């Protein structure tokens, strides 16, 4: 650490390097922190969360009961103890609330005055954050599994929507109409993602175990269909050609730079693809438990030198090194299946929501605690003991001697 600082001071290192090193360290130190709480608003499982990319201050969450909550993540109290307050809620009492489970929520990438939510009640709503009323409602024929707004798009404001219908719908926020349909999948589309690098590139994952990459300007068909065997016909049986997974593909995530694409499927695998060529990089992440029949929201860290993947795995969140596939740690804290997790790039915090109605904040444990522990161990007197929470003390009674 000191070396990094010195090199930074001397100008030997790129400032980015120090930042990366520090954020990597912080990510590795992610723990369930008793100081950080998130208000328990949802009475049901949490399907999706999203942190706004402008300020990184507000977090959206959508529950299985149709409730949408906006949290304030910023801690202005100056104390380490902080509970993320719910700023506003679209509760069951609201007139505009989604009737069924909310599957995806997303902030409008340029302004927190608007967010989009889609639900199993076959609608997608564009909300005004101030009034908490839908500004626009798109209705579909089937359950909406997923939608996505391009985070970088400047030339269009399209929302890609994956529904029970194999056709992918593109809805234009400008006109408020569905302008385009992408055909090619044979089963429901579980996840859609815009590339963070090219604004017209869209990746979609479907229950027919295929992942397709589209250029929305090209109407005729998809650019690529990801193949786990990289076109090696000898390995694939005839029906397994051009499939990304041996099962439903329910998770899709670009890396921060958009060069790689990660997919997860119900075959308990996670795969890393080169998003430009569609090549399977064949990174082995081992078994990633995945039984979800719906979309699985997972995320990749940003600004770390080896990037990390945070993927829900049963009742815990697994942290993998992106390129090596090494399991770094398992974040165990939920008591039921985890459905979504979101990385806060500014503070290197992770928020995860699960079926146990909890949103847990995984906060980096600061170095200072290490120092405190050392000091505790050095001065073994009663003074050092008293400074610690009494709950952390051993309570051996004397009669055991």
């Amino acid at each position, binding site marked *: 650490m000191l070396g990094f600082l010195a090199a930074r001071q001397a100008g030997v290192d790129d400032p980015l390097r120090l930042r990366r090193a520090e954020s990597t360290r912080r990510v590795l130190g992610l723990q*369930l922190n008793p100081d950080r709480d998130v208000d328990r608003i949802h009475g049901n499982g949490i399907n999706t969360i999203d942190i706004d990319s402008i300020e990184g201050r507000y977090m959206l969450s959508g529950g299985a009961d149709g409730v949408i909550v906006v949290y304030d993540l910023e801690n202005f109290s100056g104390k380490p103890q902080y509970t993320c307050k719910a700023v506003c809620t679209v509760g069951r009492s609201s007139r505009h609330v989604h009737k069924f489970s909310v599957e995806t929520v997303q902030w409008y990438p340029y302004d927190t005055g608007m967010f989009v939510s889609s639900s199993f009640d076959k609608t997608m709503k564009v909300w005004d954050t101030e009034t908490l009323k839908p500004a626009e409602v798109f209705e579909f024929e089937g359950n909406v599994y997923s939608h996505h707004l391009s985070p970088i798009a400047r030339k269009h404001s399209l929302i890609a929507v994956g529904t029970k219908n194999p056709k992918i719908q593109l809805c234009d926020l400008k006109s408020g109409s569905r302008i385009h349909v992408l055909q090619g999948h044979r089963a429901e589309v579980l996840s859609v993602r815009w590339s963070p690098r090219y604004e017209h590139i869209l990746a979609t994952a479907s229950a027919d175990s295929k992942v397709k990459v589209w250029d929305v300007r090209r109407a005729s068909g998809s650019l690529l269909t990801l193949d786990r065997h990289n076109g090696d016909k000898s390995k694939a049986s005839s029906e397994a050609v051009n499939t990304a997974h041996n099962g439903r593909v329910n998770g899709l995530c670009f890396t921060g730079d958009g060069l790689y694409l990660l997919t997860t499927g119900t075959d308990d695998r996670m795969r890393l693809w080169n998003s430009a060529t569609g090549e399977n990089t064949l990174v082995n992440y081992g078994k990633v438990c995945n039984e979800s029949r719906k979309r699985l929201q997972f995320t990749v860290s940003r600004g770390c030198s080896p990037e990390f993947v945070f993927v829900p795995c049963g009742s815990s969140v697994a942290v993998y090194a992106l390129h090596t596939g090494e399991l770094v740690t398992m974040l165990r804290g939920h*008591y039921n299946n985890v459905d979504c997790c979101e990385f806060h790039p500014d503070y290197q915090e992770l928020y995860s929501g699960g079926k*146990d109605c*909890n949103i847990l904040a995984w906060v980096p444990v600061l170095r200072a605690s290490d120092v405190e522990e050392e000091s505790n161990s050095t001065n073994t007197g009663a003074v050092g003991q008293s400074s610690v929470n009494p709950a952390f003390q*051993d309570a*051996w009674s004397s009669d055991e001697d």
Partner: protein
Amino acid sequence: MELSQRDRLSELVEQLTTSGQPQLNQDKMKEIKKICKASNDCIEHMYHSVLSRLNEEHAEVRLSAFQIASELFSRSHHFRTLLVDNLQEFLELTVETDSEQPLPPPKEVARKLRSLAIQTIQSWQTSYGGAYKKLALGYHFLKQVKKVDFQDAEARTVAERRRAEDRQRRMEMIYKERVEAALKDMEESYPDIEATLTEMECCMRLLLPEFELTGIQTTNSSSPNSQPANECSSVDEQPCCSKDVRDDKRGGKLEEKEGREKKKSDGEEKRETEDKGTIEGEERNTGEEEKEREKKDRSEEAEGEDEKRRDGNEHEKKKAKKVEDREEEEEEEKGSSAEEEEEEEEEGDEDLFIRNSGLISHSYSLDLNLSPGLHVKETEDNEAVVSTVIDLHKLIKSKHLPAVQGWIQVFTKSGAEQQLLRRALDLKRSLEAALQKHEELHIDYKTRVRKVMKAHSDGEDDDDDDFDEVPEKEGYEPHIPEHLRAEYGLDPTPSTSTAPVTKKPPAKRLAAPPPPPSSSFSRRLKRRAEEEQDPTCAAATLRLLKHNFPLPAEPSSSAGPSSSQSSSEQKATDAPVVPFGLDLYYWGQEQPNAGKIVKLASQHQFWAHTVVEEEVENEELLAESRSRYISFPGRFTPVGHHCRAPLGNGSLCQRQDRHKCPFHGRIIPRDEDGRPLSQEDRLREEQEERRKREEQPDWRDAELMRDIEAATGEDLGSDRVGKKGKGKGKKKYPNLSDLKQSANTSRSRLERKVFNKSAMRRVAQVMSKCDKRKHEKFSNQFNYALN
């Protein structure tokens, strides 16, 4: 950490968790704590061993492991962090958070473990919840997602609660239905019951008009009726009042009050006169005695009379009268007024008592024969009413009261409206009151019942009644009522009944009946003979039966000289009855063509001569026709002895075989302990015993049983059998309750039999054979061959 400590800890954990006790052994626990206190390594080791024990599929093991964990949890911070880190799994294993991982059997222990775990976690939450975030999360998870009610002592989950609610709702539904049914029932039969009650009431009133007036309904009502007579008599303290009361009683309670009163007054008047008489008489007597002493010239008669009077009190009145008469005769000249004055003067001290009380003696015993309560005697007049009352009583007792009680039960059980319940209760009360009233009436049914019977017999006797109810008859009737014998075509004296048999002549069986005494009788006999020919008639059947089962008494009545009668009787009873045969037919005669056979030279009827008829004597046939086979099966004598071989349970074999018990072989004399009396038998038995002990029955072959166990996964006890020789059946953890044992239910045993591999195979074979047969049978028919 030293290896010895580690080993010791493992050992202690194993011992504690396999103890099967609901509470931990404190000494061992103390030792564990002592070791754990030394270092965090020990605690880590403890944690892992406890968790591995928690993973055991046995609730007792888990309970003990959980108790160890909670002990350490409250002591060590390190243990807490370790445990809280893995709280999910811990909860799954102890609180059953994952419904797909239920707690292992035995059930009661699992329930206990669950409630204990929930309580413990709550206490942990209160003391450590703030410090350990995950613990708080787990607590909230249990509370909010799993909806564990921590206050609930039962610690039931939502599902359990819902199930209970469901059950309750179902019960409510059932109750509601029942209440509705009962209500409907009640509505329907309410008028009925009301009518019955009114009818009963009316009948009661008819039977005992003043019933309502004199009393309410208890025995008190009866006492006022009988009391006045009793009272006045007792007040009077007259010696002869009992007689009056008896008179009263004889008058009967049924009589009207006025009548009784009148009678009573009559009686009292009578009594008064009588009393006067007696008193007078007695006074006279005493006076007389004194006079006797003075004058000494009393007549002999008078003395005798006095003696008699002293002897018996019963004749007092008569005597007194007589004496009085005599006195009057004697003292005619004196005059009545003078006589009385004289008496007054002559009264002594003892006479004062008599004068005052009217009693001669101090010790009188009163015999009052009073029956408590009412008695209604059935008479010709109230017969109809009484019979109605009986019917109603029966109706109430057998139908209405049970029904009402059933309704009340339903209403109380289901908590129906108060109104309904009250109504039903009222109904019940009134019914019971009616019954009680009926009880108190003490209606004398007997006369009536007898009367009814009489009426019945009268009806039977009635000849003009053509359509008597006739009991159904089928086949042979051993007892035919005498009056019906004519109908059956039989003579009036029944052959089957005992008394007339001896008188009956035996001629019936002979072809020619004795000459008829009258024309009508002969006609009847003729008709009977005809009927006997008719096989459909009962007479024919009877005749047949008579032939087949000759009565032992019958031959005794053969008409013979009285001197030989006894011997012939004896013979007749001894002689066997044999079926009729040729030998009897030709009894005492030469049989004309016995043993002769017509021999045909050729079997052909055309080619041979027809005239040639040779008769061949056959000795055997001849002998056969003259002899008679009498099979002698012997008499059946029931077996009086038991096998009495000692059984395993200490008792003796109770089989009663004649010669050989199927279990214990030949039956030999044994003493009361079941040991054979003779020495060689005893030796033989001992030998057999030894042999049996040596060889296991082949079905209990340990090897085979182990194979079966491996195939079925059930414990047949092969290890027990196998180890019997070694003499120790060692289980790994004898203290834990055996999970497999609990699976030994009738169902599992049946399953073992039915789903036995060999049985299944056998069934499959038979089925396939059936199939194959069908195929073979119809294989040449395309439409069968295909399926």
